């Protein structure tokens, strides 16, 4: 992957970016800052497989005119920027808090290089309040009636119909991005592996790719195969889990139990491959941490066993009329809205956007044409379920291909002690949720100055809020499950 550096004046950024993003092959990857005195915009070129890093220095003191009005993709980024760096976007449509919803934490932005005190009057932690006859508000969470992560949903309803959904996150903010800059680069991989437990492989892979760019090293071919194996197994595991959760939510307990049981086989494969049933700490910069030839045969056997059992169930799901009927036409997200709000991953593909970073950015062995990108056009819950099912089929194909063709050799490269100074490292990985970006910026002496992580959930939470509108309140859990978003990945 090549990184092109571009400098754009801050006052032109809005127009230039709008022009760029109008082109079909460009996507806004990330909008962040290094220390609060500039904006860094990552634009992904899906045709030339390269990344543009746009640097715009802030001239005015900690403020600029907001991009969100013309570029809706940026609205969540700008809200986070304001909280983390104190960079104030003027005329932002709604500058609500994202992470720090507690009034004690409102004032000091944690990632800025200098002490900036935000104006209390500018800080907005409110909810949209709709007052009318027959309108009532249902608050759900952050403590839920089950073992899931914390998130608060405020649902405004008329009768059974949702007219507005507001999502409040940030309960799991742990200061990951700041911690990443305080530890030696070799240890960031361990931290990356644990920031969101279900995205362990994808996060550590993105970290490894970014670090390897900064070290200017190439990994061996065997490493690429093993990484692909791990990434696809994680996808398999989580897609099965999401389907199982879907079945639980519509009280189809027969399939829910069966899928949960079959997921155990994937855990066994993970145990054989990575030494951990939850894929922990497998991928590191320069290679993988465990390589055992013998176990690949076991994995192959388990994969065959799983395929026989799982495919039967998946075909049953696709042909079960009551199942498809239940999920049809609820939680719709139109293609244009999915485009405007920069949806990624399963959600984008269910809304008809053919975008899969596996076919664009190097992250393992994905020869062109080995898999067809799963796509549905309806953008509803059924569409997202179908995309997951097709991706499970694709993953099997990739896994079989990888296991057949895996090269022998070393799976570890020696690393330098220093990262190259003043450079950018970008790791883009298609996690099971979608496009995951790790951006590392180093300072003069090769230490990590800024570590920015963009989880796919960061994009997609807005999509959930939009998709739930005009649906039945009792369908909200299904819509939520079909998005399958991460709280810890978003909050960091």
């Amino acid at each position, binding site marked *: 992957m090549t990184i092109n550096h571009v400098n754009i004046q801050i006052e032109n950024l809005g127009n230039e970016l709008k022009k760029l993003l109008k082109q079909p092959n460009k996507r806004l990857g990330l909008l962040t800052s290094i220390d609060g005195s500039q904006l860094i915009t990552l634009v992904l070129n899906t045709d030339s497989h390269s990344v543009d890093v746009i640097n715009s220095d802030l001239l005015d003191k900690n403020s600029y005119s907001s991009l969100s009005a013309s570029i809706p993709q940026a609205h969540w980024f700008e809200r986070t920027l304001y909280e983390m760096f104190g960079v104030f976007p003027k005329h932002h449509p709604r500058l609500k808090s994202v992470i720090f919803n507690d009034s004690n934490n409102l004032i000091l932005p944690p990632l800025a290089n200098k002490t900036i005190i935000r104006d209390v009057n500018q800080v907005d932690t409110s909810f949209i309040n709709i007052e009318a006859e027959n309108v009532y508000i*249902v*608050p*759900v969470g952050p403590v*839920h*009636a*089950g073992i899931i992560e914390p998130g608060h949903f405020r*649902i405004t309803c008329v009768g*059974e119909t949702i007219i507005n959904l507001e999502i409040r996150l940030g309960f799991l903010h742990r200061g990951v991005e700041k911690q990443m800059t305080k530890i030696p680069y070799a240890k960031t991989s361990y931290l990356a592996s644990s920031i969101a437990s279900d995205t362990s492989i994808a996060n550590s892979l993105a970290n490894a790719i970014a670090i390897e760019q900064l070290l200017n090293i190439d990994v061996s071919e065997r490493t690429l195969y093993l990484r692909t194996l791990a990434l696809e197994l994680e996808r398999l595991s989580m897609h099965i889990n999401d389907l199982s959760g879907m079945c*639980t*939510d*519509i*009280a*189809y*307990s*027969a399939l829910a*139990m*069966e899928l949960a*049981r079959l997921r155990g086989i994937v855990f066994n494969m993970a145990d054989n491959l990575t030494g951990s049933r939850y894929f922990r700490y497998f991928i590191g910069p320069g290679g993988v941490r465990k390589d055992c030839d013998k176990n690949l045969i076991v994995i192959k056997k388990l994969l065959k066993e799983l395929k026989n059992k799982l495919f039967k169930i998946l075909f049953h799901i696709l042909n*079960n009329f*009551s*199942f498809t*009927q*239940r999920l049809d036409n*609820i939680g719709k997200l139109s293609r244009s809205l999915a485009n405007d709000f920069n949806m990624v991953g399963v959600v984008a593909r269910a809304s008809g956007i053919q975008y899969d970073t596996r076919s664009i950015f190097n992250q393992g062995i994905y020869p062109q044409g080995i898999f067809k990108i799963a796509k549905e056009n309806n953008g509803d819950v059924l569409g997202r379920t179908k995309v997951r099912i097709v991706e499970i089929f694709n993953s099997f194909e990739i896994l079989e291909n990888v296991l057949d063709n895996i090269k022998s050799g070393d799976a570890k490269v020696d690393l330098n002690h220093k990262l190259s100074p003043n450079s950018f490292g970008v790791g883009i990985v298609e996690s099971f949720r979608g496009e995951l970006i790790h951006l590392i910026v180093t300072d003069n002496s090769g230490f990590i100055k800024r570590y920015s992580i963009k989880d796919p959930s960061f994009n997609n939470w807005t999509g959930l809020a939009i998709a739930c509108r005009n649906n*039945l*309140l*009792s*369908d*909200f*859990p299904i819509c939520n499950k079909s998005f399958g978003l991460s709280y810890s990945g978003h909050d960091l």
Partner: protein
Amino acid sequence: MMIIAQIILTIFLPLLMIGIIRKLKALFQNRTGPNLFQPYFNLFKLLKKNQVISQDSSFVFIISPIISLGLVIFLSFLLPWLPFNKAVFESNIFLVVYLLALLRFLTIISAIDTGSPFSSFSTSKEVTFAVLLEPAVILSFLALAIFYKNTNLFYIFSSNQTVTLNQIPVFILFAMSLFLTSIVEFSRAPVDDPNTHLELTMIHEAMILENSGLNLAIVEYTYSLKLLLFLFLMSSALAHCLLIWWHLSVFAMTCLTVFIVFLLLILLSFIEVFTVKLSFNKIPNFIAYALTFSFLAVFSAIVNRS
């Protein structure tokens, strides 16, 4: 003697039946499942626990589960659910139907009393369904009354009746209507999922969300006893049809009734495991099926009445 047997069954059978449903569901899902007597263990556990009572609730919250339990026990003497139970009180179908309505009223005020948003929220759903369901219950009982020109249930179900071929459709339709009714009444799948604790979809579970300890134990026991009565009533109706061909002794009838209840439990758990929960706005359609069977029962009662 008979009354003692009935009391023993009333005490021990309901929770065992819940245990059987859970075990059957587990077996359908390829799981081992909990112990058959797990509901009893849960009951003892709940009895030992403290009660947490919302400060906003009044005496209604504490007292209405107890009254409900009393009513259901009273109901167990009013319904001819066992072939051998004798009328202790004068039994009348209208009394039964409106006792059921009173029972629901008590559950509802107890749920609203705590002021919990989820309870009141699901209560409004429960009431919506109850309003639709009530005609189905009344008409299905009425069909029997029309056929026998008598509103005494013990007279209708007494084995001394001369049984003719005419009554078979009435009894079968009555049982079918009652089965569909009880799926809604007892919040089983596909209308509600008794396993779910999703705040926004559960109906029955949300209504008893605030109950704990002794209070919850009473609510759960009441629920299972009511389910027992409904299932046994269906089973008696079906078993009654067989009296045309065989004249069975009371003991044989009892065995047959229990066997049919077991079949009904298998059916209930099968439906629960293998169906997808209905969308909220499709549930009235489901209730319409129950109502249709009730109407058919009434029509066949009118047509076949001698």
